[in-house]
């Protein structure tokens, strides 16, 4: 762990903490419909959209109406994406003449992008046309992110309002989140990426002549070997920069190319790498400030941000440490860090990023529910690979997805306040609102659905050889980690993978599709129910017995509750996967 690496990590978090307040304050103004400097351009666009769609922006919605609007919007856009994939061969902007996407893969991909997961069971450059990538997938990067932000804002209104039955208007929050927040920031990032060499075109793929012809031997299904001489290489092109910007900013994570952020056309320099990581944490960090301002307690927002930062630091420290360690089975190789090499485990990592920026990216992308990668998580050391998995298992609340991280964290805040209330034998209160049985029931529903779908589907996949094990590349504990990671990543709407598992099978396409759906909508609904219930409550005056949610004690309690719930739920599965693999690695076994 070189000082150089720590300086990169320190620079990253310092920039996030510096940017959180201006962006958070801006988002408060946007969602409270106060004046912003973009109004002269965007207000006419907004009015036009409402006129076309017949939306009354002043209409307020109860939580059920809000949830219904969110579901209708998601269903409509999901079906649209399914159809685009199925008929892409007849549509324009398909210079490679790619065929229709198979039904099970189209089902999986449509759910994946509309749930902000961006799990990709396919190789984009050989499966999706430019039109599908732009109209079917990149649009979801905006929409699903805007839905997440809208729902988080509705939850914050639920806390802030008193004796009201409504949470705002879903269509207004969706529109303003897209026009005022996601679109302008994406344009800035896309231009920065282009300046660094990220491609942005609609050209057919280039063909380059390789300097040295390669002899490739393949074995067919009949067992016969065929040797081919490869003299050319296809270099995929496309509108990458525009998709790269929103893919990270919206914590979507779906790469334009299969190699995702490790591809030199997606993430060419250490500077773009820093920009990508910043854009992943930017909105989730800003929303903590928005929370504090909208509920009238800025210090509460900072306390939540402190808990997120603490959990982030533990993750990045562990991952950086684990990946900096020499592989114990490679006795005769110099694996120490020096001025001429990164040292440690460089398998699956890009030399231009090194260990620190790779460990940081892996932590950031899984803390937030992004899932973009600049390395192959499957190639990490067992404990290094456990960090991304644990980050997602905590519920994608360490900064978390745009919006989803905020409302996920607020569920844990309610749970923490409830536990604090139980400890001292008082009715728990959160910012003056009494937390009652309905709120806790809904919070528990939110918390229980997550492990239920993950562990349930993982168990079925592991116990059914023809379903779950037939497309597995590695066996033993690493194989279990690959399957577990797939379901964890889907339920957490993350989308990154331990790539040794071929998930483009009927079983995985459908079961992971269900997992993504449950991990998104079935968790949003109880959360909105709590918001609706909280909005109707009176504010109780603060007394000496009220548990303050602005202090370091609260931050520590919140962090502890998150870690304990995560550990109690997933430690048995982790002990059979990465922890066992770590122990066996040191005993001389690999998988």
């Amino acid at each position, binding site marked *: 762990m070189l000082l150089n690496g720590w300086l990169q990590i320190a620079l990253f978090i310092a920039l996030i903490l510096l940017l959180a307040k201006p962006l958070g304050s801006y988002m408060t103004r946007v969602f409270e419909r106060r004046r912003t400097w973009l109004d002269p351009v965007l207000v006419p666009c907004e009015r036009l959209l409402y006129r076309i769609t017949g939306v009354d922006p002043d209409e307020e919605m109860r939580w059920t109406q809000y949830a219904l609007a969110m579901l209708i919007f998601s269903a409509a856009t999901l079906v649209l994406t399914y159809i685009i994939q199925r008929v892409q061969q007849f549509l324009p902007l398909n210079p490679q003449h790619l065929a229709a996407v198979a*039904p*099970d893969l189209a089902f999986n991909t449509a759910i994946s992008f509309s749930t902000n997961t961006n799990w990709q069971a396919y190789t984009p450059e050989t499966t999706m046309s430019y039109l599908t990538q732009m109209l079917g997938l990149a649009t979801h990067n905006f929409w699903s992110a805007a839905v997440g932000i809208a729902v988080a804002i509705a939850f914050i209104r639920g806390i802030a309002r008193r004796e009201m039955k409504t949470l705002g208007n879903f269509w207004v929050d969706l529109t303003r989140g897209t026009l005022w927040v996601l679109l302008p920031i994406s344009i800035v990032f896309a231009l920065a990426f282009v300046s660094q060499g990220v491609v942005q075109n609609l050209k057919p793929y280039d063909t380059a002549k390789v300097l040295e012809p390669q002899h490739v031997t393949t074995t067919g299904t009949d067992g016969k070997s065929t040797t081919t001489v490869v003299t050319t290489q296809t270099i995929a092109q496309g509108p990458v920069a525009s998709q790269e910007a929103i893919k990270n900013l919206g914590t979507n994570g779906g790469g334009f190319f299969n190699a995702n952020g490790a591809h030199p056309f997606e993430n060419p320099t250490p500077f773009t790498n820093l920009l990508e990581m910043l854009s992943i944490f930017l909105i989730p960090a800003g929303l903590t400030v928005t929370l504090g301002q909208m509920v009238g307690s800025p210090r509460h927002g900072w306390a939540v941000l402190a808990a997120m930062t603490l959990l982030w630091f533990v993750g990045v420290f562990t991952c950086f440490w684990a990946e900096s360690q020499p592989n114990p089975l490679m006795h005769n190789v110099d694996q120490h860090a020096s001025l001429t090499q990164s040292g440690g485990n460089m398998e699956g990592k890009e030399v231009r990023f090194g260990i620190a920026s790779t460990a940081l990216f892996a932590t950031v992308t899984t803390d937030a529910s992004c899932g973009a990668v600049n390395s192959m998580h499957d190639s990490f050391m067992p404990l290094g690979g456990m960090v991304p998995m644990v980050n997602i298992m905590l519920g994608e609340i360490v900064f978390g997805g745009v919006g989803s991280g905020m409302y996920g964290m607020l569920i844990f805040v309610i749970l923490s306040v409830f536990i604090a209330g139980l400890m001292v034998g008082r009715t728990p209160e959160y910012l003056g609102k009494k937390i009652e049985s309905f709120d806790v029931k809904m919070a528990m529903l939110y918390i229980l659905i997550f492990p239920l779908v993950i562990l349930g589907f993982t168990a079925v996949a592991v116990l059914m050889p023809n379903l779950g094990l037939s497309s597995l590349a590695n066996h033993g504990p690493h194989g279990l980690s690959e399957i577990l990671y797939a379901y964890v990543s889907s339920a957490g709407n993350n989308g990154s993978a331990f790539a040794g598992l071929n998930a483009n099978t009927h079983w995985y396409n459908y079961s992971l599709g269900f997992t993504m759906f449950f991990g998104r909508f079935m968790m949003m609904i109880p959360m909105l129910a709590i918001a*609706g219930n909280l909005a109707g409550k009176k504010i109780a005056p603060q007394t000496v017995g009220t548990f303050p949610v602005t202090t370091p004690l609260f931050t520590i309690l919140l962090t502890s509750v998150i870690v304990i719930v995560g550990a109690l739920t997933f430690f048995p599965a982790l002990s059979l996967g990465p922890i066992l693999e770590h122990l066996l690695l040191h005993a001389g076994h690999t998988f």
Partner: protein
Amino acid sequence: MPDFLALFTLAVLFTAALVYVSGCDRLKGSRR
């Protein structure tokens, strides 16, 4: 047929989500 299966599955999932919304709302109502 596979298209029908995929779209039918989506319809079932979203219907389940709507029932879930209604169930949560009723649970809240029954307390009061």
